[in-house]
Structures are given as structure tokens and as C-alpha cells.
């Protein structure tokens, strides 16, 4: 199963080992791990809650992985995204990509996380000393996704 949404933490080594198991043509593994920062926009973050849209999230992540596989010559790719309550320094997301050579693995890995950040239905709510707040979408994430020149996602605003 190339995508998972779960409340539990994950072991990066175990997940990447499983991803490349059974295919010895793999020579390169690129990985990205997103973690909870304790400071965001100058406010200290005490904890965070990740909400998602069950059903759609898995489909959106699978579609992003499929797009990466059709675009680059990679062997396999994996996305694990946590939901629920998280604390600073906790792992949030793992993207792993295997390929024969590193260039494809790096590009596909960065593509997947860029698209995940603009297309997967997940939302962060931070608890800070000033109260709880929903994290605002960042224009820089839209710009990062736009670099890949996929058709723009549909907008309804």
C-alpha cells in the first residue's frame, strides 16, 4: 500500500527498508520527513492537531504518487501522513521514493511533497499561548507546486 493515513508514529528506517525490499535494481532512496516546529510565524506552538477528509485523503495521495510514477522513472514511492494530536518535534509526514539513479528519486520526492502540500485535504491547527488557530495556506507552497507545471488544480474561489 503506497499511501497511509494514520495516527501512529512511523519508523523511517523500517518504512524505507520495506519500500526497497525485493527490488535490487534500487540504487537510490530519496526521503522527506516533515516535523512539527515549535515556532511558527513568531508564536510558540505547544501542540498541533491534524485534521483530514477521510476517504478523499487516501485518494488524493494515491493520485499524487501515480502522477510521480508516470512522470519519472522510479521504482516505487510511499507516503505516510499522520493525523490527530502531535507535539513539537513529532514526525508528521514521510515521503520515500526509490529508483535506480538518484536524480529521478530526488525530483519525484520533492514533487510529491510539493503537491501533497497543495492538494491533499489535510489541515493543521496549532495550539499556542495566544490560543488555537488554523494554519493559513502559504503562497510559497503554491509557488513550489507551480514549478512542476502540472495543470493548475481547480479553484472554486
Amino acid at each position: 500500500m503506497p499511501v497511509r493515513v494514520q495516527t501512529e508514529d512511523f519508523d523511517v528506517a523500517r518504512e524505507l527498508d520495506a519500500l526497497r525490499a525485493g527490488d535490487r535494481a534500487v540504487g537510490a532512496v530519496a526521503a522527506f520527513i516533515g516535523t512539527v516546529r515549535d515556532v511558527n510565524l513568531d508564536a510558540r506552538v505547544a501542540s498541533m492537531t491534524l485534521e483530514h477528509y477521510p476517504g478523499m485523503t487516501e485518494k488524493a495521495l494515491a493520485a499524487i504518487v501515480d502522477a510521480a510514477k508516470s512522470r519519472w522513472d522510479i521504482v516505487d514511492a510511499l507516503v505516510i501522513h499522520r493525523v490527530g494530536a502531535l507535539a513539537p518535534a513529532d514526525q508528521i509526514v514521510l515521503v520515500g521514493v526509490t529508483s535506480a539513479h538518484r536524480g529521478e528519486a530526488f525530483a519525484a520526492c520533492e514533487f510529491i511533497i510539493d503537491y501533497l502540500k497543495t492538494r491533499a485535504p489535510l489541515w493543521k491547527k496549532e495550539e499556542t499561548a495566544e490560543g488555537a488557530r488554523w494554519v493559513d495556506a502559504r503562497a510559497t507552497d503554491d509557488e513550489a507546486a507551480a514549478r512542476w507545471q502540472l495543470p493548475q488544480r481547480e479553484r472554486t474561489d
Partner: protein
Amino acid sequence: MRDVEPNTLSLVYLARLREAFGASSERIALPAGVTTVAALRAFLAARGGAWAAELAPGRAVRIAVNHEIAAPDAPVRPGDEIALFPPVTGG
């Protein structure tokens, strides 16, 4: 397209919209004249209060039809699951 009562829509509200509307989902009869995503948005905004505020033109709202992000002119059909949510912030 699920096995539901005819002529209803399943609406889902997420994150800030869920909190603002005080509901995570509801089932409504397909309103007369609502055939597109944009029309549904306008119909809900006409409820006033938080609905008007959150769904006002210009507010960044994403709408998914049956788990796929949809454009304003995308069709709305009986039995659809339609979700309204703010721009995503995962990852």
C-alpha cells in the same frame, strides 16, 4: 453516486469551515436550480451569518465533488458527496 435517498446531497465541512458552521456534515434536498458547484456555494452563502461570511465571493474555499476537487462550473447531481474546506495545509 451512492445508494442514498433520491434528490439529496451529502455535504461535508472540514477544518475552519466545520467549526464556523458548527457541523461536520448534513444531508440536504437538492435545491431547485442548483446544478453547479458555484450555485451550491451561493445557495449555502444565502443562509447568512457564518455561511455568508465564510462563503462570500473572494474567500478561499475549495469544493470537492465525490472526493475530487471541482471547478465552479462542475455539475452537482443527486447523491453527490460535496465537501467544502479551506486551502489545505498538510505536509
